[in-house]
């Protein structure tokens, strides 16, 4: 009767969860309220009655039963909920790896001791620049930069893991290098990616904040895109994902989506149990998503940009309404990445030829 251990067993666990549809990672949106007014925010304010404290606790109980290990609380801004710490204490008591996704502005010094007791595995905080001018222009909230930096510094000082998330836009690209330097200096992981998700309200994506081709090229020349959040290193497998199989998102009114980026309602926790929605009686959309294979993505599976692609099925859905279709933003990055690599190879060949010529001359 031995207990076995190995890090490869983590991968094995994930595979089991994908195979058996166990929602090992859940993102729980506690509110759509937010104290900032970010220009690029994809969230749509929901005026329906949000889940009560008791409803949230009931859902947390169900997630324990379903096998969820990782629970990320997100918003809106989670710290706008008066009952946040009640919810966090409850979730901690049920044993989860907790992630808190926040803009950081409402984290006060008096919260720190309580947060230390709750031991979240990480905070994910959005920061849009290294100056108040840039950051506050994006959040449209004066003073937000100062508050966020204070929160980040306080959390780091207390030993919390902080991940800074920065979508690169034409509004903040000019500070991207300095962001990297300052994050490295602070010892925090910076998840910086070009591009922003379209609104979840079904509106057409307006590319007004997208990087210009020149800026995108500059960025891609010096960076690999940070795909750590996708947990999938193999591009051939990145056409599909864990959404709807081993991961899901719950909205502040109790709707279940396969992913926060894939607002396809597969159930309503005010009407059905999580087990019914996920296991016993999954709807057709969920079944379809689970049955998708790479070859079902007709256009993408034949695409010669495949190896450069960072396609996220959720973003594809937000951009085009089709989970199986091409994602215009991913196509743009892949096309540019391929062009840059080809240019690099040409440069290498040219440099090599020049060296050969020089050696011959000697």
């Amino acid at each position, binding site marked *: *009767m*031995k*207990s*076995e*251990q*190995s*890090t490869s*067993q*983590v991968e*094995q*666990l994930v595979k*089991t*969860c994908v195979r*058996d549809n*166990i929602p090992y990672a859940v993102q729980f949106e506690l509110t759509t309220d937010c104290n900032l007014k970010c220009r690029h925010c994809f969230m749509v304010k929901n005026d329906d009655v949000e889940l009560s404290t008791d409803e949230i606790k009931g859902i947390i109980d169900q997630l*324990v*039963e379903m*096998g*969820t*290990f990782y629970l990320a609380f997100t918003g809106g801004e989670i710290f706008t909920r008066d009952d946040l710490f009640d919810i966090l204490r409850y979730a901690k008591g049920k*044993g*989860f*790896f907790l992630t808190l996704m926040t803009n950081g502005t409402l984290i006060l010094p008096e919260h720190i001791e309580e947060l230390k007791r709750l*031991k979240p*595995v990480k905070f994910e905080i959005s920061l849009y620049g290294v100056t108040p001018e840039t950051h506050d222009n994006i959040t449209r909230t004066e003073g937000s930069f100062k508050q966020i930096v204070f929160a980040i510094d306080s959390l780091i000082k207390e030993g919390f893991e902080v991940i800074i998330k920065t979508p690169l836009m034409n509004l903040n690209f000019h500070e991207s290098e300095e962001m990297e330097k300052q994050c490295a200096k602070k010892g925090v992981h910076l998840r910086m990616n070009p591009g922003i998700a379209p609104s979840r309200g079904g509106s057409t994506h307006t590319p007004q904040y997208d990087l210009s081709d020149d800026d995108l090229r500059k960025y891609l020349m010096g960076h690999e895109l940070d795909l750590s959040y996708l947990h999938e290193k193999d591009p051939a497998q990145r056409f599909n994902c864990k959404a709807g199989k081993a991961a899901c998102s719950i909205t502040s009114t109790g709707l279940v989506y396969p992913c926060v980026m894939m607002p396809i309602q597969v159930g309503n926790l005010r009407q059905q149990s999580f087990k019914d929605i996920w296991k016993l009686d999954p709807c057709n959309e969920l079944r379809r998503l689970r049955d998708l294979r790479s070859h079902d993505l007709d256009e993408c599976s034949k695409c010669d940009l495949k190896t450069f692609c960072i396609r996220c099925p959720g973003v594809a859905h937000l951009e085009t309404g089709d989970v199986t279709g091409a994602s215009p933003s991913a196509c743009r990055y892949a096309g540019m990445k391929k062009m840059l690599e080809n240019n690099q190879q040409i440069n290498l060949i040219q440099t090599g030829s020049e060296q050969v010529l020089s050696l011959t001359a000697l």
Partner: protein
Amino acid sequence: MISEKNHLKKSQDLVWRVINGEIVIMTSDGREIHNLNRVGSAIWELSDGTKNVNEIVSLICERFNVPFETAHSDVVEFGSQLVDKKLLEIA
């Protein structure tokens, strides 16, 4: 090695779930996984800080219909392993 009078309880900050009928424990750093078999899962669930080793042994005997000696040996050996790995604590 744990003794018969020891009360066993689960260590803090572990995350454990029942996956396909068996306990899967993940250590607080998320890097180690411990899969317990059916009997191990029962011992784990009974280790709630209120029962001593002998009481756990008796409950295992009832649940799996095994002789006291067999259950005793399993619980002591397995409980000791988990205490060594810091998954269980002596309450």
